[in-house]
């Protein structure tokens, strides 16, 4: 078994309104910053032991599918690194 950190990034699907991100962008503009757009995402770091990186990825994928992301509104991305 090898120790991995699987990182799951969950973000709203393209085209789904994100009022919190819009509010944050407006607050940055009020502070004098210039920006075109702002996208927010949630990031989960999962420390786990697995036989290989593919197994670690599969497990993180399933966790994203079943809880961390809501497939109706979210896309997610999994990256795996040895820890």
């Amino acid at each position, binding site marked *: 078994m090898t120790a991995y950190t699987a990182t799951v990034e969950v973000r709203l699907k393209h085209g789904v309104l994100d*009022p919190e991100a*819009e509010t944050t962008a407006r607050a940055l503009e009020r502070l004098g910053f210039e920006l075109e757009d702002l996208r927010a995402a949630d990031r989960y770091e999962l420390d786990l032991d697995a036989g290989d990186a593919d197994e670690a990825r599969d497990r993180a994928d399933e966790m994203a599918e079943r*809880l961390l992301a809501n497939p109706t509104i979210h896309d997610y991305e999994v990256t795996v690194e040895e820890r």
Partner: protein
Amino acid sequence: MTVSVIQFGGSNCDRDTVQALAHLGVDADLVWHEDGLPDDTTGVVVPGGFSYGDYLRAGAMAARSPIVDEVRAAAESGTPVLGICNGAQIGCESGLTPGAFTTNESARFQCEHVHCRVENADTPWTAAYDEGDVVELPIAHGEGRYEIDDDRLDELEADDRVLFRYCDANGTVSPTANPNGSKHSVAGVTGESDHVAVMMPHPERITLPDVGPTDGQGILRAFVDAADAIDA
């Protein structure tokens, strides 16, 4: 006929719901989620509140708790199930009903009375109304914006699964009468079968005559009708 009103840590409309059902003559009990659904359950309400502190997403944690599997089984065997507000978020997170309720367009918590138009009067939840009727209902949510893929929404509309849409006092659906930016102003939908439904507005808060209007009674009357059907 006992309606189980499920309490999670953070539920806060549970007792109001029991009181509203009792006013309509429906036997209703609070059920702590860890205790499981009682065997004599003949109806289920998943009430409003902030279960699990809205961790991760509103309703996400409660939707994956063991009692929801029991609710799913009860729903499949024909038991009426209504999710209100946080219960609606739980219903969608659990897949009992389609779509998702997410952050209001305003990015604010909104607590106000709204009008809703009855879109389909041919369900247990709307049988007391006629299609096109306008009812006044309270909302109180930060995450009530209905989201779903356009194709899926087309299917729901074609299958008459939209229960209510937000509208103005005259029944006109428009962006200005949409309090939270819900897609197509959807305020409530049914599951695969119409005895399962979720809605963001709170019928239990507009049922007791001593607190004001009683427009919500018709929705909760579904449980009265279910009891009558069992007795008959």
